[in-house]
């Protein structure tokens, strides 16, 4: 089944006239991990919200084999897992367990199956111990990993993460990277954290003023300092791209893929 994204001429303007997306052409293939880079206000979050049908602009958009439109929303949201930037927005239920079960239960799964999904998803982000906790009792890094579990429990085909390493201390960031590297999914990661992109993604796209201005191998894009500078991006000073390897992919999916519908 397709986990791909095909966007052609995707545009969206906010009611105040700001063109957040200005004719995006983007094609992501099954199994790819793509970093979406760009300064604040480049349209990264707007693009992300489109992939789940939370915003609808003009142009063509096909995600995970589905034409995005009002009729396809439930199926689209099953196949596309969106992890929001602020885990406090994502975790709205009183306990972690109920929050992770929210998606599976909305999909119409039985309570037993939902319970299994909760255990499996919390396990794959190493948060098994937190099921009975309230979100406010968790550290930022833990909240972020639980937020990822809430969408993994729906077994999406495509995982979309908005600034996953924002507000994390170095240790929480490393733990998050380890968790993300083990997830076998097509992945779109919007981030300012260029070293994270270098470790996680083989491909990178730069978004600026609502357009794709660069698209290619992550290492080549990150190695082009003129391109980065032109788009208000930069690697940490002294960062040596050659000494950071792409993390190896897991051999088999750690969670079974959804059956073809």
């Amino acid at each position, binding site marked *: 089944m397709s986990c791909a994204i095909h966007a052609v001429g995707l545009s969206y303007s906010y009611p105040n006239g700001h063109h957040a997306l200005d004719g995006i052409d983007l094609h992501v293939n099954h199994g790819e991990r793509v970093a979406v880079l760009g300064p604040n206000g480049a349209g990264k979050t707007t693009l992300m*919200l489109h992939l*789940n049908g*939370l915003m609808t602009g003009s142009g063509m958009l096909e995600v995970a084999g589905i034409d995005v439109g009002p009729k396809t929303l*439930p199926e689209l*949201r*099953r196949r596309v897992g*969106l992890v*929001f930037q*602020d885990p*406090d*927005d*994502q975790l*709205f*239920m*009183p*306990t972690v*367990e*109920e929050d992770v*079960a*929210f*998606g599976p*239960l*909305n*999909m119409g799964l039985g*309570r037993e199956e*939902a*319970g299994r999904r*909760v255990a499996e998803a919390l396990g794959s982000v190493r948060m098994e111990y937190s099921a009975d906790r309230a*979100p*406010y009792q968790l550290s930022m890094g833990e909240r972020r990993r639980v937020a990822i579990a*809430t*969408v993994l429990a*729906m077994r999406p085909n495509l995982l979309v993460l908005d600034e996953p390493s924002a507000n994390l201390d170095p240790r929480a960031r490393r733990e998050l990277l380890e968790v993300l590297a083990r997830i076998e999914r097509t992945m779109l990661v919007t981030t300012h954290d260029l070293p994270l992109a270098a470790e996680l993604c083989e491909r990178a796209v730069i978004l600026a003023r609502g357009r794709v201005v660069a698209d290619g191998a992550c290492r080549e894009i990150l190695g082009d300092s003129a391109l980065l500078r032109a788009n208000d991006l930069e690697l940490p000073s002294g960062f040596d791209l050659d000494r950071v390897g792409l993390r190896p992919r897991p051999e088999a999916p750690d969670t079974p893929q959804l059956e073809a519908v």
Partner: protein
Amino acid sequence: MGGLCSHSLELTGLAGDPASPVHRLDPRAKILALIAVTLVAVSAPLTAWPVFAGCALVLAAVAVAARVSASDIWRRARFILPLVLLAAALLPFVRKGGQTYELGPLTVHEDGLSVFVAVAVKAGIGTVSAVLLGATTTFPSVLRGLEAMRVPRLLILIAAFMYRYLFVIVEETGRMRAALAARAYRPRTALHAGALGRMATAMFLRTYARGERVYHAMLARGYAGAMPQLSPLVLRRADVLFVALVLASLVALRTVAEVAA
């Protein structure tokens, strides 16, 4: 989370022995029994002292079984009682009858005073009932109990979100207060309160924006108007016994008091 706010929020958690038989009861059983105690006390005539004593005994028995200490009850009740008593505070001065006592420029009437004491006792019984419910039942369980008792779902949802985001908002308020204090803001006259007004406006806007993001996060995981539940409540024999015991003693109490009167 900082300062005084977090202290009073901690008082919303469980107290006593979380493994006690009372803590383990179904929330519906506790809600029903403690509402019954309150109703019986409130509906009894002002002079029905045996009924008040009986209600207090029932509450004391519940507190002992739950191992909630008197100091725990007092620490929580003292936040609620002044508000409840405020409504009755004028009674000794305006309700005439019986002996009068001069209290500086004010005159206290005996009848008014006895009505005030009876009302205070009723308020105290109601408050302690609520405190015991809160000390033996987590807030999410109370909500689940109320939902199972057919309280309108919208009210439950509002209360659930309020509870979830109370902590987030308290944190944000704490940060804003710190930011004001860091710039030497020390309100001395009412005219200086303008900054607090702007802070409230900022809080409102932030909360509104967060509400929108949370709603997006819910939609992204397939929310379609109903909050799914992972594990439904089940009434066990202990729950039924508890309610029956409390109700039976209350009915006996009222009957005996009526007959004696």
